[in-house]
């Protein structure tokens, strides 16, 4: 779960990090009021869950409350990277002496948290050459010790009071990362303004799997309706732009199913990983989600491990009988309780495939025929 910038900054402030004075607003009038309160030049930042807002025009500057009102009016309602702007953050404009980059995230290859810092902040970190990036893996139970702060400061060229402040910031960032189950805590740019380090941006991503124990965080839900419904069933769903609705069991095989559809020239309408061991009722509901997206064909690819073929067969029959299915369904069904599943389908006039690529080819052929 990604937090909006203003939420991330609120979190930072609660942990004692310095953030610019400012406030999130949803109307031009409020923006003017906040600018008046700040009483200095401000920046108006669109609140969307995407980077690169600046390039998309989602960030504007204003010297007066009136300018702030105008800027907010422009930004509110605009679309940044496909996302509609409904909130803006109005903040004091910082006097920038230097911009740093600093982040803590999870390095899957190293199986450890990693601290990333650079004296070349303000831009995308992947565009900064390696030699200007400090990367330190962290021992999960030791976190950022003082010596590591000193070493990072040395490599960033920080000394004196600023180094001291940096030495307070890094362990705090690690505490946020750990205590909030974050996958990513990123400040870019971290602005040096005089002797102060100010988090001029905040990118915080919370591990979805840990949300159950992070009840005090705000809830951000940017999923589509179908994604939300699938998630409520404990399944993983991603909307795509093709016309063959796909359900398979397991992330890998679902990806493989999309690949094979594309290989035969088809276009998947979605990614729906029905997981392992999903029961009959949930499978039926998942099928209803697929139906709701109006595909040309539904392709079900089941290799039953924990998932039982008879459960899938019963779910399909249930949906067919109760809701009706007005598009062709291609189903491939092998594995646990395969015979029972195939029998149930046959009794209901559905013939199951045994071989994945033959079934996929058929689904693509049918989608083409429906076109």
């Amino acid at each position, binding site marked *: 779960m990604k937090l909006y910038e203003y939420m991330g900054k609120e979190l930072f402030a609660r942990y004692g990090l310095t953030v610019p004075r400012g406030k999130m607003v949803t109307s031009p009038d409020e923006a003017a009021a906040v600018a008046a309160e700040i009483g200095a030049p401000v920046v108006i930042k669109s609140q969307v869950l995407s980077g690169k807002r600046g390039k998309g025009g989602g960030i504007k500057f204003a010297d007066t409350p009136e300018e702030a009102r105008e800027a907010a009016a422009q930004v509110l309602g605009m679309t940044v990277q496909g996302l509609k702007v409904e909130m803006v953050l109005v903040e004091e404009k910082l006097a920038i002496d230097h911009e740093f980059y600093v982040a803590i995230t999870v390095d899957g290859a190293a199986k*450890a948290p990693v601290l990333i810092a650079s004296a070349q902040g303000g831009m995308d970190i992947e565009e900064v050459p390696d030699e200007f990036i400090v990367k330190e893996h962290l021992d*999960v139970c030791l976190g950022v010790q003082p010596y590591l702060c000193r070493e990072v400061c040395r490599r960033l060229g920080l000394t004196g009071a600023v180094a001291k402040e940096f030495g307070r910031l890094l362990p705090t960032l690690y505490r946020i990362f750990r205590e909030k189950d974050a996958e990513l805590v990123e400040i870019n740019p971290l602005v040096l303004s005089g002797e102060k380090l100010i988090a001029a941006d905040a990118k915080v991503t919370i591990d979805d*799997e840990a949300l159950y124990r992070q009840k005090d965080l705000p809830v951000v839900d940017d999923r589509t309706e179908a994604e939300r419904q699938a998630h409520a069933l404990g399944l993983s769903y991603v909307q795509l732009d093709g016309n063959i609705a796909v359900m398979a069991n397991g*992330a*890998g095989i679902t*990806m493989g199913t*999309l*690949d094979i559809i594309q290989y035969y020239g088809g276009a998947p309408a979605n990614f729906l990983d029905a997981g392992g061991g999903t029961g009959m009722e949930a499978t039926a509901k998942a099928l209803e989600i697929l139906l709701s997206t109006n595909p040309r064909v539904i392709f079900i690819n089941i290799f039953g491990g924990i998932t039982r073929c008879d459960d899938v067969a019963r779910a399909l029959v249930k949906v067919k009988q109760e809701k009706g299915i007005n598009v062709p369904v291609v189903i491939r069904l092998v594995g646990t309780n395969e015979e029972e599943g195939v029998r149930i389908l046959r009794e209901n006039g559905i013939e199951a495939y045994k071989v*994945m*690529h033959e079934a996929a080819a058929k689904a693509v052929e049918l989608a083409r025929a429906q076109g």
Partner: protein
Amino acid sequence: MAIIVDEKTNVLVQGITGNQGTFHTKQMLGYGTRIVAGVSPGKGGQTVEGVPVYDTVAAAMENHQIDASVLFIPAPFAKDAAFEAIAAGVRVVVIITEHIPVHDELEIIAFARRRGTIVIGPNTFGIVSSGRCKIGIPPNQFFVPGHIGVVARSGTLTYEIVANLTANGLGQSTVVGLGGDRVVGLSFVDVLEKFEKDPETRAVVLVGEIGGNAEEEASLFIKKMTKPVVAYIAGKSAPPGKRMGHAGAIIERGKGTFEGKVQALTAAGAGVATLPFEVPGLIKEALG
């Protein structure tokens, strides 16, 4: 031989009295796995499928030699159960549980490293040394003894490929599921090293996916291997930046692309299958 587990491996099932635990205990016993004990706090003294249940791992180990443990434990409690097995000195810990918070995974792996424990998973189907020992959840019937080692990130896709191998007369020495999460215990390289040393394994199938750089790292090792490797990488058609189920399967920052992985593997001398059903043919070709 086979790697990591075999017919002599004594297995403990943590969470044996739950639905999943009980179901798969039966399945594993049916495959021939030596399940010697189960753990379920508060249920000590019961039996499940004839297997004695204890309240704690330590209690089980007072009464049995335990070589490996498999966890059917809900995500919020999985870290603690893994810690319990690691602290008790179990050599191999297989974590089937999915949806474990990544910070818990970081802690599990860090603790396991300190104790020298092999962790398979989390979010894995487990490990099968065909015909000898299945620890995990794959369907029994597709895994038959042979000389192909399989190492994979995802579950069902692996069954698909193993079934293809078996249908083509290619049995497996050991099939290892690394787990689909971003942070897991064993890596491709760990397993490839073991297959390279295993006299029973003649060729290796690597089942990867887009995202991360595990396949790229594996390529560096494959270059040095004497045994042929055939790879299949899922996710060619995935749009960048879309999360495809596995936390690990995100194409991040331009790294971990399908093309990059295929290129690295090909350069390392591995055969790369475009579709899963091509794997057996490539293996046969490689074995000459």
